[in-house]
């Protein structure tokens, strides 16, 4: 990977530029510009934190499903086995695994979000 600049730094530079021009925009576009800057920040976090989050999800799903596979196929199987009623809130380890996966995802999507039970 190119490191000068890294991809997340490119995203960061765009977000900073959007913030610079934001004061010159009308209210509606100023709002949308903030959303766009947030999108760039999310891209940056996904680049830096995404691989570890996905690797951990793969490991956790493999434990719950007692098999190996890539993220997409295990996610599909996990959904199917929950939907069929085979895996429930009573299933040992399921909620614990889903909790870690949810925390890793919110850390990418909305790190400032105060989830239920977090205060």
């Amino acid at each position, binding site marked *: 990977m190119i490191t000068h600049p890294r991809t997340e730094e490119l995203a960061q530079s765009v977000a900073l530029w959007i913030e610079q021009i934001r004061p010159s925009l009308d209210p509606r576009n100023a709002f*949308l510009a903030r*959303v*766009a800057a*947030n*999108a760039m920040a*999310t891209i940056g976090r996904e680049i830096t934190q995404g691989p570890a989050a996905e690797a951990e999800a793969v490991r956790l799903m493999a434990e719950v499903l007692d098999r190996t596979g890539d993220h997409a196929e295990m*996610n*599909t199987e*996990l*959904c199917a086995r*929950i*939907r069929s*009623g085979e*895996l*429930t*809130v009573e299933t040992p380890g*399921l*909620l614990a695994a*889903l*909790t870690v*996966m*949810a*925390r890793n*995802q*919110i850390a*990418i*999507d*909305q790190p*400032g*979000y*105060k*989830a*239920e*039970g*977090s*205060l």
Partner: protein
Amino acid sequence: MELDVRAQLERLTQRLGGEGATLTEAQRLSGGASMETWAFGFEGRDGPERLILRRRSAPFDEETARSISLATEAALIRATGANGAVVPQVRHLCDEADGLGEAYVMVRVDGETLGKRITSDVRFDAIRPALARQCGAALAPIHATPPPPGLKLKTVDAALELDRYEEVYRATGAERPILELAFQYLRKHQPEPVEPVLLHGDFRNGNIMFDPERGVAAVLDWELAHIGDPAEDMGWICTNSWRFGRPDRPVGGFGDYADLLAGYAAAGGRSIDLSRVRFWQMLGSLRWGVMCLTMYLSWRDGAEKSVERPMIGRRVSETEADLVVLLEQGL
């Protein structure tokens, strides 16, 4: 062609304020793709008036829409207001002569609707501990209002809501294990059927006008009103996505469950179990998660172009972060 709302407001001013009445202000406040809100004021025969115009700017079919018509909305605000609910006064239901399309006018109520300010601004520190009880009291006369005859209001219950949102979720093609688990859990824990009542349908922090001294000043945004379980309105205001950074205060980010329920009972509402509210709260998180998915899809499929839409899609994970905790805690 874009309607010149300001010019039509000049005309409306003559109709409401009498000949010679002059428009003193007209400002578009907000609005999505299909709904506009305007603040306007005039100096008329009987003095100044400060009003709000709500008008629809896109085609609407009440038969298939989830939301109700503006005429129905106005009728419900009038009916619940006559029954003691804290709602704005409907000043005028627009007709063809007004040239504003589907629209009505209400008297402007002062106060704050921004959820974050209600939960965090120092101006609300003194009144905040009273708000959950007031919200319970505000719901009681709404739920006790007999639905005016002739209105097209949908009736839903827990099973129908789960069916509807699961159908929408399946149609998105998304595969989200936490949402799957929430659907399964909620289906197994549906509350006993209850006598359905008139519901506000979108009763949450953000849709209520609060006054820093008096508290609840007006219940706004009636477009999702329907008939159903009274605990649905209570669960929605407890859904964490509307607590604006204060998950430790379950009611709207400002109060406790017990105060909401006590305020409701003291105002004549029937006794409601907390577990029933928690069921609708969990369904609220699930519903918001599915709604976030559909908002992303409206962008992917080209119906909406705003950058806001795909970013709302990334809010699904906030509902998942809440749902795993609720599933762990139980109802």
